[in-house]
Each structure stands twice: as structure tokens, then as C-alpha cells.
């Protein structure tokens, strides 16, 4: 076996290694089963956030408590959505504690807002597809002011994250309760159709 053939094979091996490396890194998020997107889907049937990092102790929710390095003073909940079922509405009441809501698709966060953006003490975010957004615009009554924040999602499925900061240890139970008090519901279409009887809230 000639030496040059060996070096050629090694060079080919290194090129293959580079290709395999890039393909693997790109494929990990797509095929991962332990990522937040996959695990958040346990919350799809709930109409309030699934608590994934509680502060007050107590038994963790089923499928929760997976965050690798959570902030010990922030209570975190997730709501998964599938826009095929209809736009998802996240409603939060601004309380005494700082609250933030962020919207994530599988590729990353695409929107985030804190309770400072609340209108009259309430925060209403509606995640929708482009078609649902156009429909909502068409159904808007002229002259009526809506306080909904309408967000167009880059993909059909994703999840919302609710974070409430307990600045003092005595506020931990309040922070957990504030996460639970947020509602994540599926908006029924403006004119209810027969396919989705009695689903979601207006």
C-alpha cells in the first residue's frame, strides 16, 4: 500500500468528519426528545401554564422540573400551542411581581414582553398564523379598540413561557400562584363554525 493512498484516505476521512459534524449539529434540535419544545407539549391540554420550575416546594407537576440551571428565584411555566386548533390567547394580570411572557418556536424565541406593557392591568397576547391574523383584521369592528397584542408566529407549533420573579423568599408562593393564574386558551373563531363546537373562549 502506497503512502500517498493512505494520506489521501485520511484527508477524505477528515472531509467526511467535517460533513458529519455539521450534519449532526444541525440535526440535534430536530431530533432531540429532551428539548423544551418536545417536553412542553405535555402542557397542550391544559388551559394554564405547566409549572416547570416552582419555588414554594411541593411535588413537581407531571413532566415538569427539567430546566438544567434554573434561576432559584424565578417561577417558570410553559404553555404549548398548535395553531391548527386556532389562535392561542395568553392572558395575564399584572400583579405586584414582575412577570414576563415569551413566545418560542422550535428555532428560538420570537417575541417577549413584560408586564410593563400591560394595558389597564392586563396583558393579552394572541399568537396566530398569517391567515388567522388577516381573518382577525377582517373581523375587527370599525371604531372598536382592541387591547390584544397580535403576534404572527413563524411556525405552526411552539410554546409560551411565563416567568415571575420572586424578589424576596416570602414572595415565592405568590410567584407560583401568579404563574398559575395566567391563562392559555385557544381562541374560538369570531363566528363559531360547526367543526369546533364550544371550544376555547372568546
Amino acid at each position, binding site marked *: 500500500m502506497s503512502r500517498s493512498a493512505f494520506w*489521501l484516505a485520511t484527508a477524505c476521512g477528515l472531509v467526511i468528519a467535517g460533513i458529519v459534524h455539521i450534519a*449532526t449539529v444541525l440535526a440535534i*434540535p430536530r431530533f432531540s426528545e429532551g428539548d423544551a419544545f418536545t417536553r412542553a407539549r405535555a402542557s397542550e391540554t391544559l388551559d394554564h401554564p405547566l409549572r416547570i420550575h416552582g419555588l414554594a416546594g411541593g411535588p413537581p407537576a407531571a413532566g415538569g422540573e427539567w430546566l438544567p440551571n434554573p434561576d432559584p428565584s424565578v417561577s417558570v411555566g410553559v404553555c404549548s400551542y398548535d395553531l391548527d386548533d386556532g389562535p392561542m390567547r395568553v392572558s395575564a394580570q399584572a400583579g405586584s411581581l414582575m412577570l414576563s411572557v415569551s413566545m418560542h418556536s422550535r428555532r428560538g424565541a420570537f417575541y417577549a414582553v*413584560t408586564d410593563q406593557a400591560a394595558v389597564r392591568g392586563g396583558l393579552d397576547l394572541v399568537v396566530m398564523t398569517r391567515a388567522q391574523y388577516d381573518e382577525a383584521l377582517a373581523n375587527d369592528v370599525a371604531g372598536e379598540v382592541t387591547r390584544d397584542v397580535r403576534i404572527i408566529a413563524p411556525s405552526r407549533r411552539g410554546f409560551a413561557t411565563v*416567568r415571575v420573579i420572586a424578589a424576596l423568599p416570602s414572595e415565592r408562593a405568590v410567584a407560583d400562584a401568579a404563574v398559575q393564574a395566567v391563562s392559555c386558551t385557544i381562541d374560538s373563531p369570531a363566528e363559531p363554525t360547526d367543526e369546533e363546537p364550544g371550544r376555547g373562549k372568546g
Partner: protein
Amino acid sequence: MALSSGIGPVAARSAREESSSRLRRLARGAATRSSRVGLFVYALTLGGLLGLASADYATSGGYPFGGTSIGSWTAWPRAGSLDSDPYARAVNARRGDIPLAVGEGMLLTAASDDEGRTLDARCSYRLAGVTPPARAWTITVTGRGALPPGQEPVRTGFTSTEILRETDGRFAILLSPEVQPGNWLPMPRPSGPVRLALRLYDTPVAASVGSLDRDSLPAIERTGCGS
């Protein structure tokens, strides 16, 4: 062989030579072919193993790059956004992490003190100074690996509300294995490297990390080292 014996010994010998040389040629061809197959298998194995091992190495643990280092701190403003790099995305997917979005806050980490020495759980440190503008912040210390149950430290972090401040608004956190007066943050492990995480919530600097400099972040100064 009946035929060859009929022709004569000379022809039989030449036939034998011819068949043996054909055998030799065949063997040489097989050797080249097998060495070619061997090289092919070698290249594929080398590529596959190296590629998978390097991908695993790059995506296990922390983000390999994409941070902005400011003194001993590293800011990660884009770790969770849509335009994060593929490595950060893979790291998040493997850990199941939900990073802070730009509008929510920003994470800063530190693994070494201001003189570049790795933060060691047997040493004492003084974190002093100011933080960038933010509605709230928390500072936490973590060690590597899981702790045995029942040995959780009494405190793993401070929030901006909890902390005791000087009259001018500055603060000092004492990170030490020994009990300290003031803002004492106990070491989470008896030994080994530790990491600090500063999370700024609802902060304007997440959108402009370039505006941060060393003086706008707490200094990390080593004050002593136990044996």
C-alpha cells in the same frame, strides 16, 4: 493432466509456471483491491467517529461561542433568539433549556476572576460594584454535577431586592466556603470549579451589549484561598 503428460514434461512445466504466475497476479490484484477497500473503510470510520465525537464535544456543556466577553463576564444576548447560531440551538436542545429572550432579559456568566484564574470552590471571592440598568437582577453560583440529596447549600443566589447595600447603592457579595458578615453567598461545592450567573431582567442592555464595559459589571476579586 493426461493431455500434458502426453505432450511432454517441458510443456507441463511451462503450463505449471503459467498457472502459478496467474495465481500470483490474482493475489496481487486481490491485495490491491482489499487495500483499496480497507482505505475506504478507514476513511469512512475515521470521518464518522471524528465527526460524531467533535459534534458531541461541541454541544455538550455550555455554548461554545456567540458570547460577548466583558472583563471576566460573558454576555449571552442571542442564545435563545431566532437568529442564534446552530451550536447554541443544539446545546439548548440537548439540555432542554429555555434561554431568556431579548425582550425578557439577559444572561451573563463568569467562570474566572478578574485576573483570569478559574473560580475555585475552596477560595473566597468578593463581588463588588454596580450592575447594568435592569428592573431586577439575580446572581447565582453553581457547581458542576448534581449534589447528593440533603446537602443543598442554604442559599444559591441573591436577588437585587434581597441584597444589603452601602449608602451609595453599591454592594459587595462575599462568595466563600466560610461564613461571612454581610451578603454571604456560600460555595455550592466543597471543591472544584464553580460558575457565576448574573441574570438581568427587563433590561435595555440586552439589545445593545456593546454599550457594556468592565465598570458597569461587578468586579470579581479573589480575597484568599484555603488549603
